[in-house]
């Protein structure tokens, strides 16, 4: 069902969501207070969620909130609080390669943008699809079955590995 009879609305939503994504992202990488950096991840992740919605990927959006905003951020906050970063004392957070790092980031970004604008993308504009949970589930259980099972192995290995690494040697 084509929905974009109001392109201005979609563009406006897109711009707002991009700003909600990018501005806190800048705070994440520049803030001197590590806890504030970590908390700024939340609006970034929620902005990305909004972009997924604009792309009609509802299930991925839900997972984005559940895993990124609800689980990974909490994990990061825990580690910050359990190590010296939680002391809230402002210590130097950046190393001496800031100009170099900025140059590398800008250069790589420029190169990618070059590729983005030069490639003739094969846009399929025939339909606005309605994705749903069951299509994703069916894909996992049929076409991407191997990935699905290997994922569980990856999860198992990382669980055991992380427990071994994090626990005190006794």
């Amino acid at each position, binding site marked *: 069902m084509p*929905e974009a*009879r*109001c392109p*201005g*609305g979609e563009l406006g939503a897109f711009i707002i969501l991009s700003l909600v994504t990018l501005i806190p992202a800048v705070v994440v990488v520049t803030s001197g*207070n590590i*806890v*504030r950096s970590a*908390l700024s991840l*939340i609006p970034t992740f929620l902005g990305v969620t909004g972009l997924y919605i604009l792309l009609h990927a*509802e*299930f991925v959006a*839900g*997972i984005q*909130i*559940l895993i990124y*905003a*609800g*689980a990974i*951020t*909490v994990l990061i*906050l*825990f580690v910050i*609080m359990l190590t010296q970063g*939680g002391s*809230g004392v402002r210590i130097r957070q950046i190393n001496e390669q800031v100009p170099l790092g900025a140059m590398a980031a800008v250069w790589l970004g420029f190169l990618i943008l070059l590729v983005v604008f030069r490639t003739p993308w094969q846009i399929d504009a025939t339909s606005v699809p309605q994705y*749903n*949970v069951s299509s994703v589930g069916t894909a996992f259980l049929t076409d991407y079955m191997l990935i699905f099972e290997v994922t569980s192995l990856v999860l198992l290995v990382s669980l055991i590995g992380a427990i071994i690494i994090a626990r*005190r040697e006794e």
Partner: protein
Amino acid sequence: MTARDWLEEIGKAILLTVVVFTYLAVVTAMLGVYLERKISGWIQARLGPKHVGPQGLLQTIADTVKLLQKEHITPRQADVLIFNAAPVLVAVAGLLDWVVIPFGRLGDRVLIVRDLNIGVLYFAAMASLTVVGILAGGWSSNNKYALLGGLRSASQMLSYEIPLAMGILWVAMVAGTLSTVGIVQAQSINRWFLFQAFPFGFLAALIFLAAATAEVNRVPFDLPEAESELVAGYFAEYTGMRFALFQLGEYAEAFAMAAMATIMFLGGWLEPSLPAWLWLGLAFVAVVVVVLLIASPHMDAVDVPPPAPGSTTESVLESAPAGGPAQSPDYRIPHYDCTLMVAIARSSKPDARGPMPGG
């Protein structure tokens, strides 16, 4: 859709937000607090609130007005920005839970803000957002009790999020959909999911209820706020309206959990022998009573073994007496009264924090 339609939708959404927020503030928070105090008073052979209004009905409103006038104390060493943002985040996460909860049926329309396709997944995601707010609030106070309470609260909520999801998943499996309206309609074809595939329905409902109780930090899962050890945990430093926002978020979530249990296991608004709204209301109240009160404020908390040797701040904290001004040594003051008393006492009397250097 034209631009006009979009604006219409946005207007409707704003209106609904105001309605739901007011409903949460007035019905869940105020009435919930009143009922909790009254019923737990009744269980403990006290009277509970009785002076303001008939049967003390207006007590919570009076409390709210009082809280509105109380000074906001920001501890000197706190991180001010995060300290202020955390209660707002918790309250908004509690509000967002209610987007997918159907309130009942009017004619052939379901009264729901929006029937998302991934309804119950969305619900679980919003419940997990609260953890971040609690952790942020506990950390930004720069108070040992608050931080410890925040960490404990977060660990507990994380631990019970998986069982919560398992309860939800069972329902999703039986109903074959994640939408809340779809789940209720599936129960009109089958029967209540509580009785479906005996005894698995009961089991799922039990797991869901236990996890939901833990998720909203109610007794007997109130360790994180254990007032006798941690002086209310993560909101130890919060006064006045900021404290009330935390409470609002917690009550909104507790009621949302109860509503979810009604929708998933008790057939939502479908009950042929009674009018829809009445049934939804009754089932809902029953679940609220279970969540809020069977686990009532005088039940014993889950036991905690002593801290492992080698923990640093914790062992100091847990062995130290933590008697605030509102503490009573041999008798446990019900959770709500105590935290409120601490908040109010500390808002009104600057010297209520005990002897000060030179003072």
